[in-house]
């Protein structure tokens, strides 16, 4: 416990001071890590703890991004107020998908495919409906004032992402030490045994997906406010779903720090390979190099370290 607490305090202090000493570029990278860790935690709750593998988490992310953006642009809402509304929308979408698929008894790869289908359906809808401005995407008017959830200095997005990441870690930590988390893990490990021990398997899965939906949607709004632009591919594209899945799988599904470790690893690889590609002439035409490294890394993780990077820290983790 003390060792873990010490490490965490150290990491926290480093995270707080980083933007004060590091160049702006690193601040952006750090922001990305915490942001990925945050939306990865959404996948981790439903996929890692509850064991319901999804290929379409972008459906929640995009729902959040579009809900808050539409509320702002079309209805003139304040962005901060639109944020919880976006989370609610994400939770509702999670609830609906869960009720439909789990009532129908979908499990494993069938559930994964259904979530992918939902994300694609939402992407196509966003691409064709007028209230989402179709394929043009939606541009949020730049008016960088904190009251508008827009900041002139990227440092504030960094700190906000850090705060979100910490909140997601706290949620995951609570899951590892409470009734809900215990039940989700039981559902993941063995549904029949869970049922026999009094667990309403259906209800627990619905809870997990609703919670995951709210978190990913919160990430969607954050993204929209940071870049002030979303379109159907950014919001609902399969890339986002894969990112959320990947950081969790690489870092360690069903662990508190898995998504954060995965986000660190993947963002790190991404940055290194991008630098390599721009510096080493031989890599110039290998585009994008990071995908190749991702692929190799994923194979190594699945083959050699199925519990993810968090496994390397198991001893610290376990006796905590």
């Amino acid at each position, binding site marked *: 416990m003390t060792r873990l607490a010490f490490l965490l305090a150290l990491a926290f202090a480093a995270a707080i001071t980083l933007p004060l000493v590091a160049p702006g570029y690193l601040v952006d990278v750090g922001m990305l890590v915490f942001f990925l860790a945050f939306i990865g935690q959404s996948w981790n709750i439903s996929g890692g703890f509850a064991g319901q593998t999804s290929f379409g988490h972008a459906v929640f992310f995009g729902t959040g991004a579009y809900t808050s953006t539409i509320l702002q642009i079309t209805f003139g809402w304040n962005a901060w107020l639109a944020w919880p509304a976006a989370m609610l929308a994400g939770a509702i979408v999670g609830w609906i998908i869960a009720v439909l698929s789990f009532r129908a008894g979908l499990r494993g790869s069938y559930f994964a495919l259904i979530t992918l289908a939902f994300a694609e359906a939402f992407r196509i809808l966003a691409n064709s409906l007028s209230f989402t401005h179709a394929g043009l995407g939606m541009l949020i008017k730049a008016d960088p004032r904190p009251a508008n959830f827009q900041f002139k200095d990227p440092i504030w997005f960094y700190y906000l992402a850090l705060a979100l990441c910490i909140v997601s870690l706290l949620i995951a930590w609570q899951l590892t030490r409470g009734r809900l988390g*215990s039940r989700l893990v039981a559902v993941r*490990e063995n549904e*029949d*045994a869970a*049922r*026999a021990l*009094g*667990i*309403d398997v259906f209800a627990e899965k619905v809870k997990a997906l609703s919670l995951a939906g709210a978190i990913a949607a919160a990430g969607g709004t954050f993204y929209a406010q940071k870049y002030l632009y979303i379109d159907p591919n950014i919001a609902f594209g399969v890339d986002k779903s894969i990112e959320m899945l990947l950081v969790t799988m690489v870092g360690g599904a069903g662990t508190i720090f898995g998504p954060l470790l995965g986000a660190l690893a993947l963002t790190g690889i991404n940055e290194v390979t991008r630098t390599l590609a721009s510096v080493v002439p031989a890599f110039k035409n290998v585009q994008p190099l990071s995908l190749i490294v991702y692929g190799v890394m994923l194979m190594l993780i699945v083959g050699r370290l199925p519990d993810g990077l968090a496994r390397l820290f198991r001893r610290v983790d376990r006796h905590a």
Partner: protein
Amino acid sequence: MLEVSGISKSFGGLKAVDGVSLDVQAGEIVALIGPNGAGKTTLFAALAGFHRPDAGRIVFDGRDIIGLPPHRICAAGMVRTFQITQPFAKITVRENIMVGAYLRIDDRSKARDRAEAVAAQVGMAAQLDRFGADLTVAGRKRLELARALATGPRLLLLDEVMAGLNPTEITEIVEVIRAIRASGVTILLIEHVMQAVTSLADRAYVLNQGRMIAEGTLAEIAGNPAVVEAYLGHGAAEVLRA
């Protein structure tokens, strides 16, 4: 406490359970025996809500529970274990048992205390930190028992908790089950280990090919020709008598 009347369950053309009735009084240990494939586990699954019977009534504590899902039946106080053990593989024994304890306890530290107490009761205190996947057969059987017990049941349905155990382990678990009964839990058990059945059960039912062919005290059943034939084959009763 449990009254079952006329339960039937078919899978396709196979009548796995055919018009079975039985009853269990509070405080009893009742055994359900019969040859392999007799329909014992199917009957348990029907009682616990895993299969919906095609016909019949199941009344638990004065309440008709037919059609209730397993988790509601568990919450009502009747819990089953699995013949083919189903440990939660990637979590520890303590966490496994806590899943059961959380049924009636919301608080984590109280659930943990309960899990540890139950583990001690079934003789697993030394294995609390082991993972479900790492247990021996005997350990898994005990874990099934412990998890079910942690839910605070009034009626336990034990499905072959002694299969695959060596004689020492059987003697131990017989003592555990006796202690569980003494603590006020009623028990219905499926068992092939006759040494255990005779030393534990007040009464027994015999199921063969989906039908209940005998019931009574163990002595009555051992002398019943239909039972002898079910186990040893047609004509066996005659041979034994001769």
